[in-house]
């Protein structure tokens, strides 16, 4: 762990001081923020390759020069996993890219993943002195994170984080998504014997079944999982805790602590007429078919619809992932239908920008009322209610209200419903005494992630109901630190 003292020690190392002096602050702030290299929109919407191409070493070093190596680095306060941001950025400036990667791995089990999918603009970068004090674009911390992680992976010199001597205490992890992997990494570092149980046949959870290849290649996830394996973490697929193994079974197997990171499961539907027609499905189903089951590949046994006129209902990141997937699968019209205006859209700005470049149509202030089907029961049309913005609601966003009597009809042959998820009741319902909220999320102490059942900790979407990869990882890390303390307390 990086404590405050350690951080300022690092900052006062001679190479850091020399580096700071090498350029005047004015020269640093005079540099403009780097642009991410991207695949051409006309090319990328016909393939599944990654859109963001990463930075070159020169671009990364120049961007790293912008960082002022602040004495009080506020960026770190914006990182849920507490990455030592100035240290890794300064290693990049110095050209010691492998040391930069090592610094990332001190606190993040999945740097190449986070460098791609974290909403840095809402976290570390939003706290950067450039945006806070100077009214300029923040240091591109996310791009630099990705650069360091990719550089290390491609160098073939991947470092495995150091682990404490084995303490032979077993802990179990339920679910191999970002929360579970972050937890597993930290517990392995502390010397625990960690076993991760995964319900699906692949490790990675939402990183595999949810986030598409063009945003996060599965091979990147596999490499980060492999590092955890080398740290001694054991992975068991096709095993559902609460079904295949009970809570009591885990006790019989001598697990001293259990971390639940089972994710948000059940997709929500709107309950409108025609929603069960063929060709109407959840974004979870659509993305799982394409990402996990590789259904767009002719060799795959799993089918998927190659819609020509595809509507995605919703304005979040999952909706953007779905609509851009539909485009790549040959949609002539790929449409976002969102009931508020673009300003209220929860999706990352970058995702919206990429979607627009790829020719995605945005039907904002529209809400589906019904779907009509063919004789055979396949969706052929959607009826949209036109909306306008009213007063701000509890979330602070202006709430949409119907424009009475104004509707639109649009031809569709595939509709993807992406209006959120609710937590999967499968695990909470199988453990007696585990408290759940009225939304079905597991109730934990927010400071420790510990539940009312003392040896059970939880984090990620099963606690939050639907959040981001990095918040899930932050929960996993917090749970690891507190479970360690709890288990040490048992021995005392």
């Amino acid at each position: 762990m990086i404590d405050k003292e350690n951080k300022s020690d690092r900052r006062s190392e001679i190479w850091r001081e020399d580096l700071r002096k090498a350029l005047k602050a004015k020269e640093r702030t005079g540099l403009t923020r780097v642009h991410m290299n991207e695949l051409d929109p006309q090319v990328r919407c016909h393939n599944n390759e990654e859109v963001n191409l990463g930075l070159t070493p020169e671009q990364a070093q120049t961007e790293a020069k912008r960082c002022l190596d602040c004495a009080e680095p506020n960026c770190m306060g914006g990182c849920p996993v507490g990455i030592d941001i100035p240290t890794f950025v300064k290693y990049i400036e110095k050209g010691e890219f492998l040391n930069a990667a090592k610094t990332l791995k001190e606190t993040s089990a999945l740097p190449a993943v986070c460098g791609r999918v974290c909403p840095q603009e809402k976290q570390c970068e939003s706290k950067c002195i450039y945006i806070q004090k100077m009214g300029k674009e923040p240091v591109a911390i996310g791009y630099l994170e990705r650069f360091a992680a990719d550089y290390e992976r491609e160098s073939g010199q991947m470092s495995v984080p150091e682990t404490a001597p084995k303490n032979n205490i077993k802990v179990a992890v339920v679910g191999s998504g970002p929360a579970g992997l972050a937890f597993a990494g930290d517990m392995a570092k502390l010397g625990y014997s960690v076993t991760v149980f995964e319900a699906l046949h692949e490790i990675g959870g939402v990183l595999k079944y949810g986030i598409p290849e063009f945003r996060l290649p599965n091979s990147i996830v596999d490499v980060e999982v492999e590092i955890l394996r080398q740290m001694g973490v054991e992975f068991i697929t096709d095993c559902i805790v609460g079904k295949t193994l009970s809570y009591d079974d885990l006790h019989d197997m001598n697990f001293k602590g259990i971390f639940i990171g089972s994710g948000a499961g059940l997709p929500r539907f709107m309950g409108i007429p025609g929603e069960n027609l063929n060709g109407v499905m959840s974004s979870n189903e659509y993305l799982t078919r394409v990402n996990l089951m590789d259904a767009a590949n002719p060799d795959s046994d799993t089918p998927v619809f190659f819609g020509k006129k595809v509507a995605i209902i919703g304005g979040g990141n999952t909706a953007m992932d779905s609509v851009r997937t539909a485009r790549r699968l040959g949609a002539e019209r790929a449409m976002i239908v969102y009931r508020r205006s673009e300003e209220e859209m929860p999706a990352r700005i970058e995702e919206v920008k990429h979607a627009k470049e790829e020719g995605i149509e945005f039907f904002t202030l529209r809400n589906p009322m019904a779907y009509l089907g063919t004789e055979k029961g396949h969706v052929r049309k959607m009826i949209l209610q036109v909306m306008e913005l009213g007063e701000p609601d509890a979330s602070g966003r202006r709430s949409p209200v119907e424009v009475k009597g104004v509707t639109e009809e649009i031809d569709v042959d595939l509709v993807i419903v992406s209006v959120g998820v609710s937590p999967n009741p499968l695990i909470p319902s199988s453990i007696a005494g585990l408290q759940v909220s009225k939304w079905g999320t597991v109730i934990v102490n927010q400071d420790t992630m510990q539940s009312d059942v003392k040896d059970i900790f939880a984090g990620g979407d099963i606690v939050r109901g639907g959040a981001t990869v990095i918040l899930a990882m932050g929960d996993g890390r917090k749970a690891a630190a507190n479970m360690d303390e709890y288990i040490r307390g048992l021995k005392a």
Partner: protein
Amino acid sequence: MNKIISKEYYSDRVIKFEIEAPLIAKSRKAGHFVIVRVGDKGERIPLTIATADVQRGTITLVVQNVGKSSGKLCELNEGDYITNVVGPLGKATHIENFGTVVCAGGGVGVAPLFPIVEALKAAGNRVITVMAARSKDLIILEEQMAAHSDELIIMTDDGSYGKKGLVTNGVEEIIQREKVDLCVTIGPAVMMKFVSLLTKKYEVPTVASLNTIMVDGTGMCGACRVTVGGKTKFVCVDGPEFDAHQVDFDEMLMRLGSYSK
């Protein structure tokens, strides 16, 4: 990876597999299903567990070769491995002493009906089993069913064995003859639809075990959704058994044809 311990042909298209799966064997109950995948490019398909042997650490699946994925499974032999088997999934059958229960099974639905017959009998019910198939050679588990049923009625479409007629003919005969407290039906969706229509007419409470398209089988995708009593339910986590009289079978049949060309 789960090893196939034995393979037995009930007919050229209906095959019984005994599969090594000690944890599932231990935790499964009547009514549960598993998700199976064959090969790295394989599809995830749900199959209801027929029986299990805790001592041997095995579960038994009865598979009808009806398509690409069931076909791939049926090509596997004793000693081969199934790429993935996960479960037990779904809610177990609610078992209690209801009184007189008619268990109506058709086709391979007879296999997952067997553990329910067994459990209902053990709970003290008078169990009358009606099993139906197109012809004599497609009748499965006759001896086992007979051993756990107070009465066994066999129906064949062509009259080559038992009585000639459909499963509904057999069920109606019993309902007209004596008071029936519950009907449990498992089989092709269209068969369950007609059993349900029949028992609704006679106001006999009926439970149907639905077999819809699934991907993950744990509630994540919603591919399996059905309308029950006007509400959307997920077969994988809310079922697979539902009050048959509330199930929209026409919608279910339509959705089963989702990906058929």
